[in-house]
């Protein structure tokens, strides 16, 4: 038990910092070290501060190597043996053939951005445009270049994608759209797709003189996209309950998940659990907590009448959560809270407070 204000404060524990902060710190340290070096070169007399600046010089050396590795020869083709990239947030994977440069992209703008950029050249990152995701590098796109980007851009909860897209993503499902940045950027091929309750984006750029091998390579990356298998009874992505396979919930079924049966995680919870309802039109979730002006109740399900009820009251709801019994006040606000459920790419049912309402 805790006072409500303290309870609210403890909800901060549910938050996680965005990805990429450490990388930002490294870049800032590099910039500060560079600035320090420039100041010292203008004021030779200050060189006696060796001990205090030794760390800064070390950082500058490290940073110089980073800069060299990251930015040498923008536009130049790259070599490499290929491999597998695994997204640190969602766990999806792409396989990339040799000759492609792969970079995890992550940033915290107004919403959190997470994804991967794949190019057969070194992108020029020196002229950012400040958009989401950053597209300044596209302005100097080589004629022989190919590139792909797959990204998630979190935002306000909207409609939850209830069904995952079909994989592999086929090139014919992409549409040509206007260039993002202009310059020498070729018009990208774009499509959105959904997986495991979240919406993602994919885009492919192909330079006019790109070789057949390069074109094949970039599409092979897109075709290789796979999402991880999930395990029932776990929390995925820090915020999503993984339930059983969708086929185990027959049409018309109502399955109860009391709070005690759910795995514990640092995330917004259904404090009293929920029911998963399989209607002919899909899956949704009914919150077991009903809050009315006269108090809270734990919603019960009566199989004989296929209705939800508040024990000890005359409140009744149908399977859709619509109030059917007598109600003491205006009708508005007396329906049960109905949340979205999603079906993962591997068929598991997913439930999360972060999914929208239906």
């Amino acid at each position, binding site marked *: *038990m*805790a*006072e*409500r*204000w*303290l*309870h*609210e*404060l*403890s*909800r*901060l*524990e*549910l*938050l*996680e*910092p*965005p990805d990429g*902060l*450490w990388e*930002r*710190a*490294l*870049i*800032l*340290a590099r910039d*500060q*070290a560079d600035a320090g070096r420039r100041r010292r070169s203008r004021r030779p007399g200050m060189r006696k501060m060796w001990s*205090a600046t*030794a*760390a*800064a010089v*070390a*950082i500058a050396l*490290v940073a110089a*190597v*980073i800069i060299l*590795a*990251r930015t040498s020869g923008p536009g130049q083709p*790259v*070599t*490499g*043996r290929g*491999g597998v990239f695994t997204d640190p947030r969602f766990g999806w994977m792409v396989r990339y053939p*040799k000759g*492609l*440069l*792969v*970079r*995890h992209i992550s940033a*915290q703008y*107004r*919403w959190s951005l997470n994804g991967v950029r794949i190019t057969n050249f*070194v992108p020029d990152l020196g002229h950012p445009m400040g958009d989401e995701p950053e597209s300044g590098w596209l302005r100097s796109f080589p004629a022989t270049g190919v590139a792909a980007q797959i990204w998630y851009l*979190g*935002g*306000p909860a909207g409609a939850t994608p209830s069904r995952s897209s079909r994989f592999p993503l086929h090139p014919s499902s992409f549409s040509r759209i206007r260039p993002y940045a202009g310059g020498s950027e070729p018009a990208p091929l774009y499509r959105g797709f959904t997986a495991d309750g979240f919406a993602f984006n994919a885009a492919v750029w192909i330079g006019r003189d790109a070789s057949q091998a390069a074109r094949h390579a970039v599409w092979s990356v897109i075709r290789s996209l796979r999402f991880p298998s999930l395990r029932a009874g776990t929390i995925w992505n820090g915020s999503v309950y993984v339930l059983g396979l969708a086929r185990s919930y027959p049409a018309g079924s109502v399955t109860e998940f009391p*709070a005690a049966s759910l795995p514990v995680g640092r995330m917004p919870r259904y*404090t009293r659990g929920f029911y998963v309802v399989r209607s002919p039109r899909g899956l949704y979730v009914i919150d077991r907590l009903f809050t009315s002006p006269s108090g809270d109740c734990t919603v019960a399900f009566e199989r004989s009448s296929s209705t939800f009820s508040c024990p000890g009251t005359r409140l009744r709801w149908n399977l859709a959560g619509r109030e059917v019994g007598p109600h003491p006040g205006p009708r508005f606000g007396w329906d049960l809270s109905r949340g979205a459920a999603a079906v993962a790419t591997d068929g598991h049912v997913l439930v999360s*407070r972060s999914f929208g309402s239906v």
Partner: protein
Amino acid sequence: MRRAAADHAQPRTDLTLELERLFADVAPGLWRTLYAFTAGRRAVADDAVAEAFARALERARSIRDPVPWLYRTALRIAAAELKRERAERSASPQPPPDAAATAQDGLGDLVPALRQLSPAQRAAVVLHYEADLPVRDVASQMGTSVAAVKVHLFRGRRRLRELLGAEEVTDG
């Protein structure tokens, strides 16, 4: 391949490795503290954490106790940024940023309530209740006296009780 590998795995020294480990341990709590201190300003919290660690990278050998140093530094950076923003807003009033994001974070009640506290009250409350620091350490982080921290805590608690309620609730 060499270039691709270098692109992923940046060259590291022992110093950066040590700080990277510290980052993994400290950054989540530090970021949450700053999120609360800035009343839901994610961008300011991000900048302050990154900047504090950047300064730590520069001065690592001269920092004796890095955790309190990081908290102190990040709080100062965030406070300066908030002050700068307040000055800018008074010149051209704008709605407080990140309102939608705080609702998205599921903290739609807490963040507006934190905004009602003074910066010193917020700092004291979050350091004591979120970062779990004893009052003496809170005073040291804030660069003030124990007595002053107790006053900030008393007033901050009282205000949060008024705004969010004092009734007992279960954590489940």
